[in-house]
């Protein structure tokens, strides 16, 4: 499995795609931190809640972690490398697990880099506005740990989705349609059902405070269940399907 993981990690870092996604993550993190930091009133930004949002700007990494997961498998189909890949590792379930591990590693890397930047940017914002740091170590753990955990789950969701759908464009459109249309509708209309969808569960995990959201721990469990279900379904189909 170590061999397979080093193979998959090399694949993820040997094209410019994931570097581009990482740079986009960092740019958006910075943008969110600065906009939030300088548009929020000084009195609000002195409060714990607003500072959690400020230092949680790295949360944008979760969406990019999902893309890393989607691309880890769908780019193999798109460019035909799935054929040589399977000739070298014909045990398909193993291959999916190797890709999952590599996608999780990259998801964690994205989240850590984004949170590190968010904390630097947040500190600069607070200093320039003459405000003090209001978070205790527990808050820091919830903010940074929540982002890393969410990115791990979303990388897994992306990989499971990509394995199921195979098409790169189809997976990405599906992901966005689900996140920004289906889930919002369901959560808006039937919040007691919709809160079990990955997006709201992810908000709950990161300490979101909406009345209908689950508790953070429950959110983590729900996300883990989504990852397990999608990866298992994807791997089961992958094992049965012919490779074009």
């Amino acid at each position: 499995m170590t061999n397979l993981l080093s193979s998959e990690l090399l694949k993820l870092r040997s094209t410019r795609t994931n570097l581009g996604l990482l740079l986009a993550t960092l740019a958006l993190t910075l943008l969110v931190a600065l906009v939030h930091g300088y548009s929020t009133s000084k009195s609000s930004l002195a409060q714990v809640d607003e500072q959690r949002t400020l230092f949680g700007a790295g949360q944008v990494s979760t969406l990019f972690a999902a893309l890393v997961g989607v691309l880890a498998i769908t780019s193999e189909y798109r460019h035909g490398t799935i054929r040589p890949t399977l000739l070298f590792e014909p045990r398909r379930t193993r291959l999916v697990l190797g890709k999952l591990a590599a996608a999780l590693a990259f998801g964690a890397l994205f989240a850590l880099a984004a949170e590190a930047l968010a904390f630097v940017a947040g500190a600069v914002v607070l200093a320039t506005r003459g405000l003090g740091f209001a978070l205790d170590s527990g808050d820091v753990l919830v903010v940074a740990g929540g982002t890393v955990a969410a990115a791990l789950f979303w990388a897994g969701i992306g990989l499971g989705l990509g394995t199921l759908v195979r098409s790169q464009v189809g997976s990405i459109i599906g992901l966005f349609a689900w996140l920004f249309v289906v889930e919002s509708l369901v959560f808006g209309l039937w919040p007691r059902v919709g809160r079990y969808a990955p997006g709201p569960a992810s908000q709950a995990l990161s300490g979101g405070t909406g009345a209908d959201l689950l508790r953070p721990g429950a959110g983590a469990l729900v996300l883990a269940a989504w990852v397990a279900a999608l990866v298992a379904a994807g791997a089961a189909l992958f094992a049965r399907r012919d490779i074009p």
Partner: protein
Amino acid sequence: MTSEPVVVAEGLSKRFGSLRAVDDLSFRLDAGTITAFLGPNGAGKTTTLRMLLGLARPTSGRALVLGRRYAELAEPALRVGAVLEATDFHPGRKGRDHLRGLAYAVGLPARRADEVLELVDLSRAAGRRVKTYSLGMRQRLGLAAALLGDPELLILDEPANGLDPEGVRWLLDFLRGFAARGNTVFVSSHVLAEVAQTVDRVLIIDRGRMVVESSLAELTARISGGVRVRSPQAEQLAARLAAPGVEVDRDGATLIVRGAPAERIGETAAAAGVVLHELSPAAGSLEDVFLELTGGSGPR
């Protein structure tokens, strides 16, 4: 080297809906041989190779390599090298990284990638992204990937596509050398002439079914267009050659002789003191008969 067949297909069939892409195909390949897998585009060659390599599941029948189904071999990439498409690369990945990614998966060190790049004469392009490669370079990169595990069996699908004549010659020389070391090659092509001088055996399929399975010598004999002879004493030679089973057509100084080998024609001429200006196999034969055997069905 074992006496067991290296590749076995038994009643191998693949249907896509009502289309019988591969229809009850059976054959065996022996170690140390080069076998050409011929047929027009769409004949079912690639589908057959995909089933041999575990990428597609047979509808019925079995496909075994080295005695087992591909996916059941322990580390198959260390025993079987294969290339299915010349385009199976991420365009933004460097050639060397493509090979390393595959090498790592089977525990081979990074330097193995450089060794096979050297073998296919791509060392200088190793650090370039594949999108800058010509089709011929991509073919060689694919071959390099197949060679990573130092395999004893090579399965190549249309490896000569996109190669210039020099590249084709290089490839065929390479395959000959590979087989001469006791290894086995199974190479598909839709152009017989491309591989005719290199292979030991030919399997010709059309519409998923076996049309011809023979040694190249048998095939050549079977489809021989006769011997072409030019002589200023053509009429005299024609009379001397006349015998049961020998057919001679004369057109001025040129004879086309069927039913007698070139050796006998030469000996007869020498015995009669007849001067020869030419003694050669009549041309056009292989490709014509290939088309005839495959029913001239053309691409589907």
